[in-house]
């Protein structure tokens, strides 16, 4: 398609202008607002006890969610790709469900199931608190991040086929050996990419988590909840900006990892 220089330039200007207004300017403003009072203000604001424990809680949730998602995600992907059973299509659909569900709806659904008046309310009354506790926040995070590992590992499994695995088992390797020696190395980049996406989403989840958290600063407040509660409950706009900038920094690292990993994955 021949495009005149003028058209090409104006299209470029429109596209870059759009990205500039939509992404660059707002982010620039918040960085400016954050660092305008000086770096020490920023550091002080993100190292209050509440901020530190919010970061800890966010990391704790990630540390619980990621291994669970890896184990069950890989298992699900293998079952979906290699398995032949009735209802496989249904299982496929279930894996996609979390993408279609609003985070708020996830929160409401979890309350209806695990809350004191829900189906599993007996657990709550017996003293094992799910809603308004860390288990609820973990469940919410697992719900929203469930598809990532599955959907990143699945195509790789398709692609590598089963020849090598079959060869290994012909040579006498048992199922686990085959998995550790053949399958896992083959899917490692897809898996890692899935993990990065999971980490990003788990750190950033807000809507589902706010519905099931008791909101104690220092106990059940993740970084995203901290941003919100500083802005609304504490009337502490600067603190909210600072915490948001911290999250943004983490997001940038994630973005970098995504870009690097993606190249690695396609270089394979």
């Amino acid at each position, binding site marked *: *398609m021949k*495009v005149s220089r003028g058209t*090409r330039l104006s*299209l*470029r200007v429109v*596209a870059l202008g*759009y990205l500039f207004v*939509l*992404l*660059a300017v*707002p982010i620039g*403003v*918040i960085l400016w607002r954050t660092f305008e009072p000086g770096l020490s203000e920023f550091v002080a604001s993100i190292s209050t006890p509440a901020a530190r424990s919010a970061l800890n809680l966010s990391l704790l949730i990630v540390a619980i969610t990621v291994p669970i998602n890896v184990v069950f995600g890989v*298992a699900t992907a293998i*079952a979906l*790709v*290699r398995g*032949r*059973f009735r209802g496989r299509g249904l*299982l496929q659909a*279930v*894996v*996609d*469900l*979390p*993408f*279609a569900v*609003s*985070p*708020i709806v996830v929160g*409401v659904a979890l*309350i*209806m*199931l*695990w809350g004191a008046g*829900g189906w599993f309310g007996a657990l709550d009354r017996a003293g094992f608190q799910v809603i308004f506790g860390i288990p609820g926040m973990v*469940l919410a995070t697992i719900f929203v991040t*469930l598809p990532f590992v599955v959907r990143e590992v699945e*195509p790789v499994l*398709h*692609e590598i*086929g*089963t020849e090598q695995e*079959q060869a290994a088992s012909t040579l006498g390797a*048992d*199922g686990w050996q085959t998995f550790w020696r053949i*399958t896992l190395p083959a899917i490692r980049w897809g898996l890692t990419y899935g993990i990065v996406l999971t980490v990003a989403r788990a750190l*950033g989840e807000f809507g589902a988590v706010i519905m099931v958290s008791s909101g104690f600063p220092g106990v059940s407040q993740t*970084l*995203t909840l901290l941003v919100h509660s500083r802005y609304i409950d504490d009337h502490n706009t600067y603190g*909210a*900006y600072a915490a*948001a900038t911290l*999250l*943004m920094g983490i*997001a*940038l690292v*994630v973005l970098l990892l995504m*870009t690097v990993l993606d*190249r690695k994955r396609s270089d394979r």
Partner: protein
Amino acid sequence: MTAHTDEQRGGLRPGTDAAPLPPRPDPTPTDGTRPDADAPRPDGAGPPAAGRAGSAAGSGRPRGSGAGLGGLRRPLGVGVVTLWLSVIVLLPLAALTVAAFGDGLAGFWDAVTAPTALAALWVTVLVSAIVALVNAVLGTLVAWVLVRDEFRGKRLVNAVIDLPFALPTIVASIVLLALYGPNSPIGVELNATRWGLVVALLFVTLPFVVRSVQPVLIEADREVEEAAASLGASGWTTFRRIVLPTLGPAILSGTGLAFARAIGEYGSVVLIGGNIPRDTQVASQYIQQQIEIDRPQAAAAVSVALLAIAFLTLFVLRVVSSRTQRREERDA
């Protein structure tokens, strides 16, 4: 080029399991090679079929040879996976649905058709539709510039497209509020208006269309475009008659995913939206409010309605994309 990258470039994600996954960033623009240096691929040579072929082969292979986690193919393994998915995903949604109909069908209907509930659903759909349309146009444009244009800093721009996926939504909200909120440094105050909602949702849905159009545009057969041009077709005609039809399915799927995401979005609108009933209150906010004022049944009912809208969108998307795919196969 490995089969895997082929698959990525196949535009619409292979098979019909095209989930609303954030489309992957395409590696090509970042790896330094000029996209237009890519040799044009013969039409229909494999890429979209790769995934399907793999899928068919995967499930068609002889089983029971003890390869891989063999157990996962046996009932026990499948059972564990099913149980897991049920506890995490299905049971909560089942509990939600039952709660929605707790007061019978009439109770569900009353809750969903309460004027503020309807207004919230309407605002959600309206704003999401606007956002989807803007995305369809500007997202395609951005993708085009990123693939067919050359300028300094293109790799950086390409990487930045994914930022909204990596950025927590509440950060998006506060970032936009810092710019478009009260005491706006540029004098534009959009908070508590529908435009504020539109901007917030445009921010979070930016990558969908760009990332689904980009790979197709890279794959697109430029010889045909050049042939059209040599036959005297103007740039616009070539775009309309040649390029657009090729990109159509990708634009559609990206737009659909953006729409589905916008429908359920909460974090990015919570601070900038204003939460004004019948004006800027979106369905997610309405649902949260119902929980806060202790009307769980209404919250569950509207949740189910919202879910239904999202499913419908994805279902239509799936039908359209599989139909296009089938047509492509026939044509090939």
